[in-house]
């Protein structure tokens, strides 16, 4: 149940309780006052009757005419009924006015003293109609209560919705907080409970951000310490390898260091957020890009076709192909089992990096770009960087893999021709017909 519903229901419940209390109070006050009123009238009548009887001229010969709703009985001390007007049965002697049922109607009965005798005057008023008003009152009160509860309930629901709207708004903003850079949630409302909640949330977010920043600073600090030595070791080992081309240990060390350098570059690019920055766009011949990577990994087979131009950052594109080649090399025993080919497929320039390694299951393929997922032996950082770079170039990275047969990674980029606006040339005659 939502908070809004609970607040609404609580308000309805409270309204019912208050209305019921007021109704009960009003009813009891009314009945009490009405009862007192009826008694008062009866007593006054009784006094008048007794006063009339006291007059000598009247005496026992008092004989009233027909009157509806009134019973008057004069009873002598020995119990003889001297006068019985309107009564079907003998009224009882009561100390104070009392309600009683007589032949299906309700009467209020009082007893007085018959002056000059020791007998009694017994008087009764028919109050059936007066008491019926009470039932009417109950009905009116209930009707009023239902209306009040409905109106108050609706008002409570609307008010709850209105008051809780900022909360829903804050939730919506909190949901859209970017986990990579948790910026504070903006809230313009007053410093009430919701304001407090937002402030507390923002404090937590900013603490998380501080922590992230600190971790990043630490990583950059560490990388600073490692960067210069790694650059030097890579450089010198490369030189030593060139001097001793036949020494397999030197070659292994130099190759390993180069991989270490590349992986550090990928990691640092991710950590520094460099992949988000704008590309330096040029017209690039992919053949040169693939050739450059091929020169770095001479054992890899190259299949270069025609000149194939795309738009992009040549260094980033080199990094993409290089990372795919490195990834493929990690999965095969022999580097000759890796082939890089270049072809055009409609509007797409396609670089395929094919290996004859163990291949991957479909599940592995779908998970390969998951953060932190690593293919057996190799870290997924290179591929993550690859994917981002390809997307930055408005391209697509496809993977085909069969267990036991190897994998093919395909980079598809829009060709330059596909991206050139042909409208530029629409109003031009073909070059062959141009003036010399």
């Amino acid at each position, binding site marked *: 149940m939502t908070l809004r519903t609970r607040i609404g229901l609580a308000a309805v419940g409270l309204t019912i309780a208050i209305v019921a209390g007021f109704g009960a109070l009003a009813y009891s006050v009314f009945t009490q006052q009405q009862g007192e009123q009826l008694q008062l009238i009866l007593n006054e009548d009784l006094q008048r009757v007794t006063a009339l009887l006291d007059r000598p001229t009247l005496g026992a010969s008092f004989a009233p005419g027909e009157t509806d709703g009134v019973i008057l009985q004069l009873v002598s001390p020995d119990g003889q009924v001297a006068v019985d007007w309107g009564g079907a049965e003998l009224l009882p002697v009561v100390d104070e006015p009392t309600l009683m049922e007589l032949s299906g109607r309700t009467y209020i009965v009082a007893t007085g003293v018959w002056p000059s005798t020791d007998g009694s005057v017994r008087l009764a008023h028919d109050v059936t109609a007066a008491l019926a008003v009470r039932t009417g009152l109950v009905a009116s009160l209930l009707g009023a209560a239902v209306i009040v509860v409905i109106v108050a309930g609706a008002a409570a629901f609307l008010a709850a919705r209105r008051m809780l709207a900022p909360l829903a708004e804050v939730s919506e903003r909190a949901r859209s907080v970017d986990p990579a850079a948790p910026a504070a949630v903006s809230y313009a409302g007053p410093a009430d409970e919701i304001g407090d909640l937002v402030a507390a949330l923002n404090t937590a977010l900013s603490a998380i951000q501080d922590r992230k920043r600190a971790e990043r600073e630490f990583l950059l600090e560490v990388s600073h310490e490692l960067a210069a030595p790694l650059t030097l070791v890579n450089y010198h080992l490369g030189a030593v390898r060139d001097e001793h081309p036949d020494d397999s240990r030197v070659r292994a060390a130099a190759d390993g260091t180069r991989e270490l350098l590349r992986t550090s*570059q990928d990691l640092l690019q991710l950590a520094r*957020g460099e992949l*988000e920055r704008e590309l*330096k766009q*040029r017209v690039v011949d992919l053949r040169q890009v693939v050739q450059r990577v091929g020169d770095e990994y001479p054992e890899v087979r190259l299949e270069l076709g025609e000149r194939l131009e795309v738009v992009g950052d040549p260094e980033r594109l080199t990094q993409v192909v290089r990372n795919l080649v490195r990834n493929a090399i990690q999965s095969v025993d022999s580097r000759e089992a890796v082939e890089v080919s270049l072809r055009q497929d409609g509007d797409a320039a396609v670089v395929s990096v094919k290996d004859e390694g163990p291949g991957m299951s479909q599940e592995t393929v779908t998970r390969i770009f998951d953060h932190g997922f690593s293919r057996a032996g190799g870290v997924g950082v290179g591929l993550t960087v690859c994917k981002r770079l390809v997307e930055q170039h408005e391209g697509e990275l496809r993977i085909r893999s069969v267990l036991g047969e190897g994998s093919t990674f395909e980079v598809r980029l829009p060709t330059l021709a596909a*991206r050139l*606006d042909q409208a530029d*040339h629409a*109003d031009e005659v073909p070059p062959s017909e141009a003036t010399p």
Partner: protein
Amino acid sequence: MDRERILIVEDDPNLARVLEAELVRSYDTVVVSTGKEALARAENEPFDLIVLDLGLPDMDGLDVAAELKGNRASILMLTARADVRSRVAGLYIGAADYVAKPFDMQELLARVYAQMRSRGRQDEYSVGGLTLSVLDRTCMVGDEILDLTAQEFALLELLMANQGRVFSKATIEDRLYREATPSSNAVEVLVSRLRSKLTAAGVRGLIETVRGLGYVTRERD
């Protein structure tokens, strides 16, 4: 022809030595290890390129770059602290390019060559029968002089001096309209005017549109 001169500002002596060993093959090099020395040398001697490490012992490399802003030399920043912020600041201050540590020496050399090449401003560019003479600011098609406004000339020079590079409208605006902010379609209007002048003179397809990116003049073999 005189060799181009490079000032290497690097406090790590091993790295400085390696940089010098590589660069001295093609250029005259001077190595200093502090920001103060770098500023003093750059003020008194002409350099074409300054390879500047951002992490110097006495000064922030960014401050050094800021003070060198008026210098004729291009700056190639070298840093391990290469987050986006320092990159943006570096380029804003006027550094021409940037290499993050750790780096492969071949890549650094490639960047240095690229810098030197783009500095080597030619006096004349020729593409497909069109000759742009930067010194006397004329544009010739065959024997005819093509009459261009200053801005049309500047745009053509920008594209021909950087053949193959795709310039966004924002970059062109930035380069051509330094002071005034042009109207939103000023670049489009300029390009279309220049194109129709070129077409009228018989030069076609020199300026091409790359959809979603900008304009380019391709290198022609």
